[in-house]
């Protein structure tokens, strides 16, 4: 394949990763933004979304589309409820102390991982995509009759991958509208800005925290459901996803939604392109290097505001 079509293929793969990453990292960013805690178990909620999608798809049966829709509804709700319960039983008890929350969520990470290993097993299992037609993509060249379109061999994507990109974009927009246009979103933002004043105006801050922790986990689970038809569900898949989410959230600026989205696109696209042209390892090395540079020269992230 020539360079142009090859680059386009790489960018499409990158866009799928960027979309899933943006969704997952926005959950992490929301949790940090409102609660000021770092959730180390975030990657496991992503893994649980994928694994539950497999369970639900197998229990429901009856066609790939129905099974997938059931998984996309049930898995995020179940994971969100589980996370909210963990918040109320664990994080509330340690008073959302930032350091102790890191330790507690590391514990949660291992519990979730081991329980998944014991019940789901060590195999990677696929979930069938609801639809998966191959779409050949055109490329152009300058011929004797000017610009001509043609379909290079190997330049194609699937309808499902395009759907993942669109679905992630719609979901992120929905989260944004929820935060800016609804009463629940107003309550969460007031809590984020000044939790003491929120309490002084009757907002039950601890319940808000449980809801935010649940929503953050639910977004990670949704990302897991979206990726599993492309990538298969495996009990260790949360690790890489967590690392990439942290990279994105740090580069974008902790707690900044817009920064998180931009950084996810940056990291996702460059990861896709570098992986295709060079190697996935180089992509991770460069991403980690970028984080180090951001931490040194702009610790608040590209879009974060300076700590006051």
């Amino acid at each position: 394949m020539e360079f142009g079509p090859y680059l386009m293929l790489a960018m499409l793969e990158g866009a799928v990763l960027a979309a899933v990453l943006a969704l997952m990292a926005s959950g992490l960013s929301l949790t940090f933004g409102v609660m000021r805690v770092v959730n180390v178990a975030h990657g496991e909620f992503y893994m649980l979304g994928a694994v539950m999608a497999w369970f639900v798809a197998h229990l429901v049966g009856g066609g790939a589309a129905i099974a997938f829709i059931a998984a996309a509804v049930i898995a995020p709700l179940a994971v969100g409820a589980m996370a909210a319960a963990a918040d109320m039983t664990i994080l509330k008890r340690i008073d959302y102390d930032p350091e102790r929350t890191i330790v507690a969520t590391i514990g949660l990470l291992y519990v979730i991982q081991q329980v998944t290993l014991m019940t789901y097993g060590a195999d990677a299992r696929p979930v069938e995509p609801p639809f998966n037609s191959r779409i050949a993509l055109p490329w152009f060249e300058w011929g004797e009759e000017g610009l001509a379109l043609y379909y290079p061999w190997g330049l194609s994507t699937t309808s499902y991958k395009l759907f993942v990109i669109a679905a992630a974009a719609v979901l992120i927009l929905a989260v944004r509208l929820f935060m800016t246009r609804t009463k629940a979103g107003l309550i969460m933002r007031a809590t984020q800005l000044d939790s003491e004043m929120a309490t002084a105006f009757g907002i039950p801050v601890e319940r808000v925290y449980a809801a935010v922790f649940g929503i953050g986990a639910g977004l990670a689970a949704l990302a897991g459901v979206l990726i599993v038809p492309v990538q298969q569900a495996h009990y260790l898949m949360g690790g890489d996803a967590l690392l990439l989410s942290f990279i994105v959230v740090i580069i974008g600026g902790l707690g900044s939604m817009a920064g998180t989205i931009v950084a996810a696109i940056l990291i996702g696209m460059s990861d896709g392109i570098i992986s295709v042209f060079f190697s996935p390892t180089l992509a991770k090395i460069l991403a980690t290097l970028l984080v180090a540079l951001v931490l040194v020269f702009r610790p608040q992230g590209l879009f974060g505001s300076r700590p006051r």
Partner: protein
Amino acid sequence: MLRIEGLTAGYGAATVLRDLTLSAAPGRITCLMGRNGAGKTTTLKAIMGLVRPQAGRIQLDDTVISDLSPHRVPAQGIGYVPQGRRLFGELSVAQNLRVGLMTRGSGAEVQEEVLDLFPRLRERMGQRADTLSGGEQQMLATARALCLRPRLLLLDEPTEGLQPSMIEAIRQVILTLRDRGAAVLLVEQRIDAVLAMADHVHLIENGRNLEDFDAAQLTRAPDRLRRHLGV
């Protein structure tokens, strides 16, 4: 009627208030005075449930509010205008008011009533709170508290750093609220302002009651207050 009896409270291991007793009656302005660090802000926070009592109790009419969860205290009808305003800076004026309206499920008519007291805010409803001038921010902080139709209004140095015209506007609103029958508990440092408005003054030192002045005793208050506050 607000009654604080034998209140001991503080932050973690540090005790700030010691056996403090004070009250605020409906239709009256009660002023709380004391030097910097005397515990005035801590007293208001304790009323709101934001600082937990180690001993003593806080009662509003028949309800022991010191037994309630902190987020249930404001719904008793307690509006809090904190020191330094503490607005939700990234939210609009309208959204700040909405937080106040939600506290007791007040409707749009309450917001209209409140905005009638602060016409300047009406023109700024869509603006971010942190872009308002200092005086407008104080108006918004007061308006936000009025949105829950408080029977007890707590104000912590509401005129700190404001221009005289703004101070007068805030004063007029406080007097209006008193005339409508609310109990007003005001932390204020300017002695002349206190003497012009107060029905009752509690002077505290190191978190303890030092002296009380009721309406009849206010005439001898200026000298005592000046000497104690050192102005």
